[in-house]
């Protein structure tokens, strides 16, 4: 069967043969490799996307259930070639090491600032509870996001 949805503002159609995840078709059928798949069980957050305005793990969304939905991935957060404010801040703060967790954190952080432009450190940590980073120890990431709190993005 085919599934059609809006991806980063454009209409897309992809083939789904099995009950695959949205993450699988984003990466393998559509070729957007920003979203990562480190666990495929909702534990790591590296696959985070916005689905109909909600932050979710795309590895836990059945691809066929995206029919008619709005999906925004990390690629949709930065206008061509530019860094988004969150990306810029993480770059500046040295919050990226291997980079595997980074796309998920960028999406989760964008959603946080959307809802709460002035998050406290505790709120930043809460918002990132579903995103695992094995490299940075989180402090640089939290510092990066703190530097954005209260600024326009």
């Amino acid at each position, binding site marked *: *069967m085919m599934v059609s949805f809006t991806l980063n503002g454009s209409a897309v159609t992809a083939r789904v043969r099995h009950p695959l995840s949205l993450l699988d078709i984003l990466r393998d059928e559509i070729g957007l490799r920003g979203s990562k798949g480190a666990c*495929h069980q*909702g534990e790591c957050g590296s696959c985070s996307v916005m689905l109909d305005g*909600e932050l979710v*793990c795309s590895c*836990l969304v*059945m691809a066929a*259930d995206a029919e*008619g939905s709005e999906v925004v991935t990390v690629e949709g957060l930065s206008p061509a070639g530019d860094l988004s404010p969150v990306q810029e801040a993480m770059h500046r703060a040295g919050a990226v090491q291997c980079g595997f967790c980074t796309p998920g954190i960028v999406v989760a952080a964008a959603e946080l600032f959307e809802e709460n432009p002035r998050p406290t450190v505790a709120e930043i940590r809460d918002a990132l*509870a579903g995103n695992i980073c094995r490299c940075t120890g989180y402090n640089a990431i939290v510092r990066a996001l703190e530097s954005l709190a209260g600024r326009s993005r």
Partner: protein
Amino acid sequence: MEIHHPRTLDDALQARAAGATPLAGGTDLMVEVNFGHSRPELVVALRRLQELAEWDGHRIGSAVTWRRIEREGPKALAEAARTVGSPQIRNAGTIGGNLATASPAGDGHPFLAAVDASIEMASVGGSRTVPWEDFFTGVKETSLRDDELITAVHLPERLPPRQAFAKIGVRNAMVIATVCCVVTRDEDGTTRAAFGSVGPTVLRARAAEEMISAEPRPSPAALERFQRLVEEGVSPITDHRSTERYRRHAAGVLARRLLERCLR
């Protein structure tokens, strides 16, 4: 594979009668799919079915998410919702999915047991509502039939004014409970204590409840006795997450602390 996006509950029930696997938030089902443990050929998608997302006073639709419960739910259920997974999991995961999965560690269950909630299920043949005790039948087993959907959870009209939830686990977020517990207390002293992860299904410590409900102003000795009766009243096992002995002890300590919170 084939997926139905029903417009109405009736459509959804027709699909269910034809053998479709329900899909709500996908946070339990997709883990099974991703690891090859489940491969549904026919799916009925409930995420956008408005009828199941309705929340009308004491009737909570089965497709209501933890995110919403965290914000709008009664105190101890909202506290439980806050501990479910992560923001990503709470945005997708639903109370109906939590019930259908029937994990012994389901964080939504203790509140429902403590307030004697009932579960509404429907099929093309009609609907029925059963008390929580008759819904959970074993580890990951329920009385839901293959042609039924869970449609809602019914809470009693009046909820106890004092209620508290707590959960023990190895991390602050994203953790399956080693023990989770809800204690409620009414003005007349009636106390309820329900526990997850210390038995095949959620359970109530009835002897402890009965003893402490008769104490209008529990003394330290009464609290001590309550804690011991809870320890005796739960039936945990040892597994990869914890030991039987630790869980028993932790259940007693948690229940006592939550009761103290209710008495404050």
